[in-house]
């Protein structure tokens, strides 16, 4: 009898500890190439149907967290932090969405997630990333994003202010999700909430978060180092891209940009190689980094990009400062701005020490066997390194769902994903 009970227990054990991961036969997300998935998301033919704009009762609001005089003149309207609230009629659970690196609250992915959760019956609040220009200016106390505990602290304060701003909003529970860097920050916010108990999150879901922040940053920085044939001192990859588009439109006989055109482009002779797609993803990341580098330097008057006390006005030519910012990748931002600030403010030490404090490793005790927090990730996510998924699986166990495809955040609109997201928050 005892032996039988033991065998049953042993047989159950793997299913209790192991994360759910789907095989590619049962998961038919149509894009196998992780770079295309990252750029293009889910093709509309394979995506879930979502409510149209006019079916959502939503509006943008602003929080005044800083005084106008605290910011230089060029930030003429950014002393207020804008956010978007979509309301259900009557009482409903509330969802906060934290955007990814550099992303605005109204950009594509937060909008997509909003529609999924709104359709699932949630009130939804969309917040800009702490690394985005508007958040840095209006809400960040250090204006030096990247140190996750402090970013979470800023976010926590913003979330409290949002709730205070809508006293008549009836929320039956408060929940949190974030994608990419926003996923990592969501976990830090959750850990903070454990101590402060001001919001009492019911559940928290991380979508494609970095595990080791430094690995993710290095991966993204590296994407612009790919070998693309035809690039020389005279010809940049943008020239090459423009020539491809020109030739393509010439052959089409007309210019039109839509999903079908992009599909056709990628099957034509002018199709981009993986290296070129990686270059595009990396460039988008580096442009966000340039914004961070410039804004953090300016707000803290560090004098690395914009000279101290430089008289910036609406009519100032910013091109020289953008040029300097473009030369600094995220690694450079860490070395030149984040680490010096961290050493001063938090008495910090080495890079390795910092990365342990800002990555998911720092939250291991909080994440371990915590049914409140879950993670969804993709086997082909560009921001991961070897061992990251193993660490997540060991730490989060059954709270982890792994999809075989989707690149970085490319599969949110795929029905299985959207369904699982809602299911996670469902009682």
């Amino acid at each position, binding site marked *: 009898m005892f032996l039988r009970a033991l065998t049953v227990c042993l047989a159950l054990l793997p299913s209790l500890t192991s994360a759910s991961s789907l095989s590619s036969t049962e998961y038919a997300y149509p894009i196998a190439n992780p770079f295309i998935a990252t750029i293009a998301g889910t093709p509309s033919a394979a995506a879930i149907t979502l409510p149209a704009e006019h079916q959502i009762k939503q509006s943008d609001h602003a929080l005044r967290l800083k005084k106008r005089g605290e910011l230089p003149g060029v930030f003429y309207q950014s002393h207020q932090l804008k956010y978007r609230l979509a309301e259900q009629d009557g009482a409903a659970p509330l969802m906060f969405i934290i955007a990814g690196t550099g992303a605005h609250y109204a950009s594509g992915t937060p909008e997509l997630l909003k529609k999924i959760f709104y359709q699932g019956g949630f009130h939804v609040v969309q917040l800009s990333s702490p690394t985005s220009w508007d958040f840095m200016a209006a809400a960040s106390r250090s204006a030096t994003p990247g140190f996750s505990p402090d970013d979470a602290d800023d976010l926590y304060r913003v979330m409290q202010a949002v709730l205070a701003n809508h006293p008549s909003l009836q929320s039956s529970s408060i929940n949190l999700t974030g994608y990419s860097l926003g996923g990592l920050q969501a976990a830090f916010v959750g850990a903070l909430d454990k101590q402060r108990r001001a919001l009492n999150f019911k559940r928290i879901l991380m979508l494609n978060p970095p595990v080791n922040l430094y690995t993710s940053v290095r991966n993204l920085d590296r994407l612009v180092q790919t070998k693309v044939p035809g690039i020389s001192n005279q010809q940049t*990859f943008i020239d090459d891209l423009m020539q491809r588009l020109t030739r393509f439109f010439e052959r089409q006989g007309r210019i*039109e940009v839509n999903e079908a055109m992009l599909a056709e482009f*990628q099957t034509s002779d002018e199709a981009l190689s993986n290296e070129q797609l990686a270059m595009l993803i990396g460039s988008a990341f580096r442009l966000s980094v340039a914004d961070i580098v410039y804004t953090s330097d300016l707000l803290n008057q560090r004098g690395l990009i914009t000279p101290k006390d430089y008289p910036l006005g609406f009519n100032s030519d910013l091109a020289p400062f953008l040029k300097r910012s473009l030369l600094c990748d995220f690694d450079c931002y860490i070395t030149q701005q984040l680490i010096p600030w961290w050493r001063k403010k938090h008495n910090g030490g080495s890079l390795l020490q910092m990365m342990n404090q800002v990555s998911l490793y720092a939250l291991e005790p909080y994440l371990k066997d915590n049914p409140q927090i879950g993670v969804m990730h993709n086997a082909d996510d560009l921001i991961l390194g070897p061992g990251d998924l193993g660490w997540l699986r060991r730490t989060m166990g059954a709270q982890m769902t792994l999809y075989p495809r989707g690149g970085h955040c490319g599969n949110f609109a795929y029905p299985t994903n959207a369904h699982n997201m809602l299911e996670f928050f469902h009682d």
Partner: protein
Amino acid sequence: MTKPFACLSLSLCLSATLPTLAHANPEADSDGFTHPLSQLQFNPFMDQQAFERAGFEVLDVYDPWTGPNRRIYQFNQRADEWIIMPVVRGYRYVTPDLAQQGISNFFSNVGDIGNLLNSAFQLKGQRSMEITARLLINTTLGAFGLWDPASKMGAPKHHEDFGQTLGHYGVGAGPYVVLPFLGPSNLRDAGGTVVDFASEQGVDFLNVATASSANPAISVLRAVDLRSGLPFEYGQTNSPFEYEKVRFLYNAARKIQIAD
């Protein structure tokens, strides 16, 4: 502003959808990780600065009047946020979708006169024929352009303006200009806009030009329809360098349009 922006959305739309590429599922390791970056070829040297060089090229736009341009850009942003977009939202709210589509089609049909003229100026035979067919079909079967049956009958919309005609014959872009209310342009295209406006007044197709000067509400409706169809909002890039990014995208879009 419409035409460049229609194409401008191209770059913003890179986040739209691309198709499946035949692609073998790479082997997953024991964690289930497929090492996507291992498929890529990287430069053998540490840093070829491909991104930095492209970035510098993006900034390489002739903009000698940058100070006034930036002030007008700021003015346009405020006008758009405080006046134009609230009006557009009100218009979208009170007007049924079908009526919005009809209004849009109507002005688009009127605009085909300019497209035809410029297409003819550039001696593009096939394109001119298509636009002529559009005008004939849409003005008759489409009830003065309220419907667009021509697109379904294989005569798709083309955009040609006088700025493109000038560019076609090798006229350079000249200095970058931000026009009040109309947005990004350059000396050549701003001149082209004036010519296009004058020729529309001259042709007076369907008496729209005459009616508009008698009744300014028609011009307002046209402007609102134009703005309503533009997928751009100020602050959308959420970047301190929006001016520079829009400037680059405008120029890139115009280069592609002129080459086409």
